[in-house]
Each structure stands twice: as structure tokens, then as C-alpha cells.
């Protein structure tokens, strides 16, 4: 992903496609979307990944998290007539270079989450999948998802603190 972002590497993008396109299609079809329409969404998501690669911040998200967000935005924009409200995008501070330790830690935390998901009981896991697929109402979602999100949240907070943003001066 970083080769796509920094070198606009097409071979790296093709590899990213091979990894994510089938997963994206499976994910979108789980919500009852037809195979043909699912491929349309996959195409738009993959093109958005290429075009918005500069916004990917490995200090805050593993690649699949960033792609998840793009995918849900696309799905919701298609269902609703209005664009889904998005938070302001935060610019990366040009003076702070990449922090490999932070990037690695985010990846590791995501790996821990994946293991935690596989260890859940089948019905609990199914509820989590339904929630993240967007199939629950907000009343059905409780704060206890069964996934331990505390450590990755602290890690992402560190990643956010590295960004220079006007709200630091505002508050």
C-alpha cells in the first residue's frame, strides 16, 4: 500500500487488487448485493483506493481498516440520496517523518483483533459481523461488541497526536 501511495506503483496496486478485490466482493455480497452490482462497488472502491492513497495513514490504520471505511461510505452513499457525513480529513504533518514502530504496532494490534474475532463463539461472531456489515440498527448496537478495542484505540490516539491539526491551537 505504501508503494502505491508514495511511488504510485501499479504492480503493487495490482497485487493489492488481487488480495482485496475478492474479499471486497464477498463482503459486499454478504449484505444481499447481486454479484454484478458487487463488482461495480468493488471497481469503485479499488479506484478510490488508487486516487485517495495519499490519505492513507499507516500510523492510524491497517490497510483493511482504511478500505473498510471507503467501502462502507460507498455502500451508504448508494443507499441514501445524500452523502454520508464524514469528519474533516486530517492532514499529515510534513515535518514528522514515518514512524516504523508506530506502523508496526498498528499492524500488530489489528492482528490481535483478528485472533480475538476467531476465538469468539459463533453466535457472538455472527453478531459482530452483522454490526460491521451495517445490518443492525443503532439501537441494536451495544457498547460491548465483544472485541477488545481498548489497546488499538490507545495506539490510534498516539497516531492522531502525531498530526499537526488546527484543533490543537483551538482548544
Amino acid at each position, binding site marked *: 500500500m505504501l508503494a502505491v501511495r508514495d511511488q504510485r506503483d*501499479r504492480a503493487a496496486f495490482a497485487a493489492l487488487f488481487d488480495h482485496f*478485490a475478492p*474479499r*471486497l466482493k*464477498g*463482503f459486499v*455480497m*454478504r449484505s444481499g448485493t447481486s*454479484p454484478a452490482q458487487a*463488482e461495480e462497488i*468493488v*471497481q469503485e472502491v*479499488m*479506484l478510490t483506493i488508487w*486516487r485517495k492513497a495519499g490519505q492513507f495513514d499507516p500510523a*492510524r*490504520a*491497517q490497510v*483493511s*481498516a*482504511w*478500505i*473498510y*471505511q471507503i*467501502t*462502507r*461510505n460507498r*455502500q*451508504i452513499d448508494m443507499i*441514501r440520496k*445524500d*452523502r*454520508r*457525513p*464524514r*469528519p*474533516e*480529513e486530517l492532514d499529515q504533518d510534513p515535518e514528522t517523518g514515518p514512524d516504523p514502530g508506530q506502523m508496526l504496532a498498528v499492524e500488530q494490534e489489528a492482528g490481535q*483483533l483478528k485472533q480475538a*474475532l476467531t476465538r469468539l463463539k459463533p453466535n457472538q461472531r455472527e453478531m*459482530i459481523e452483522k*454490526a*460491521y*456489515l*451495517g445490518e*443492525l440498527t*443503532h439501537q441494536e*448496537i*451495544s*457498547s460491548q*461488541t465483544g*472485541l477488545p*478495542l481498548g489497546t488499538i*484505540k*490507545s495506539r*490510534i490516539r498516539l497516531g492522531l497526536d502525531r498530526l499537526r491539526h*488546527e*484543533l490543537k491551537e*483551538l*482548544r
Partner: protein
Amino acid sequence: MTAITHHIPDALLAAYATGNLPQAYSLVVAAHVSLCLDCRATVEAHQAAGGVVLDSVGAEPVSDRLKSGVLDLLDAPFVPEPRFQRSGVFPGPVVEALKGKPPRWKSLGLGVRQSILAADRDGSVRLLSIPPGQAVPDHSHNGLELTLVLEGSFRDETGRFAVGDVEVADQSLEHTPIAEPGPACICLAATDAPLRFNALIPRLLQPLFRI
């Protein structure tokens, strides 16, 4: 300025991150997250979990022409997504809801003004401007109401709410928010149902004002 003390509950942030939250509430969440790094971290943590689900939910083979089609389109011209940044007291998502224009205020009497950003059968979201010392009419709620302070502050039976703070109110809360001294209190408020006023006359006026 003081730090944000009233945040959005985790369950609502989870509903937002996963795309399970109605549009009106989503605007309040997106606006608060634009001001609050803690809640942004929570939303992004849920996105991390969403990425894990995306990775493990099971793949479906894609057709050969999909890949060649995508690769062919990499250099195609495209319209970049609009980016809305903060303007004055309004966070980017509010600027987007206003379509980049200043709010069109309508008077509700006693110096209280509102500007409806969106309203449909799933709920409504609007800006309110309340002059210092003025109360929003005593009301209770049919559903859930989220109120984000953008300028000034208000106080009610449950506490004080300043810039960036969100009050989460449901059926059980009967409250009378009063704007504190200083600039007019500008809030972004979302409901999934019309507000019920306790006085008779405002109730009769409700359909007229859509408050």
C-alpha cells in the same frame, strides 16, 4: 478554552463507524469527531475492527475483466471528492450540509433562531441560535436527541455544555437548556422525532416551525 467533557457514547460511535446510524445523527457525530481526537480514535478503532471483519468474512472470485477494467481506468480523469474544511464555528461536515453557504436563519421568537439542514421521516438536523440567558422552550423527547455546541455554551439540569460538548437526551430527560452569558449559543441538534413541547401553544406551532 476548556477541554471537551461531554463525549458521544461508544455505542453511537460504533453505530456511526459501521454505518448503522441515521443521517441526522451521523452529521452530529461527524461534526463532533472533527473537534474531538478521543472520539475520532474510537471511530477509527471500530474501523480497524471493520477491516478485520472485511479480511475474514470470505472471498468471492472476481471476473477477469474486473481487474483489467480497473487497471485501465487508473489514468482516467475523475472528479475528486469535495473536501469541506472548517469555516468559522462550523466544522467541515456542517459546512458540507450547508453546501458551503452561510446558514439561512429563521426566527422562532424571543431571539431564538433555527436553520434546518435536513428533515425527513427518519429525523431532522438543524442549527439553533439561542441568545444568552434565553431558554429553549421546556420540552421532552419522543426519541433520541443529540445536541453539539458550536459556539457559546448552555446549562441545563444535567450540567454545562461548551464548544465541542454533546448532550445526549432521550425520552426520560425533561430539561430546560439555558444559554449562558457571552455570545449566542449555536448548536447542531439532531432528532429522530419531532420535539414535544410542554406548553400548549408551542405544540400547536410545531408543524409550522418543524422544531
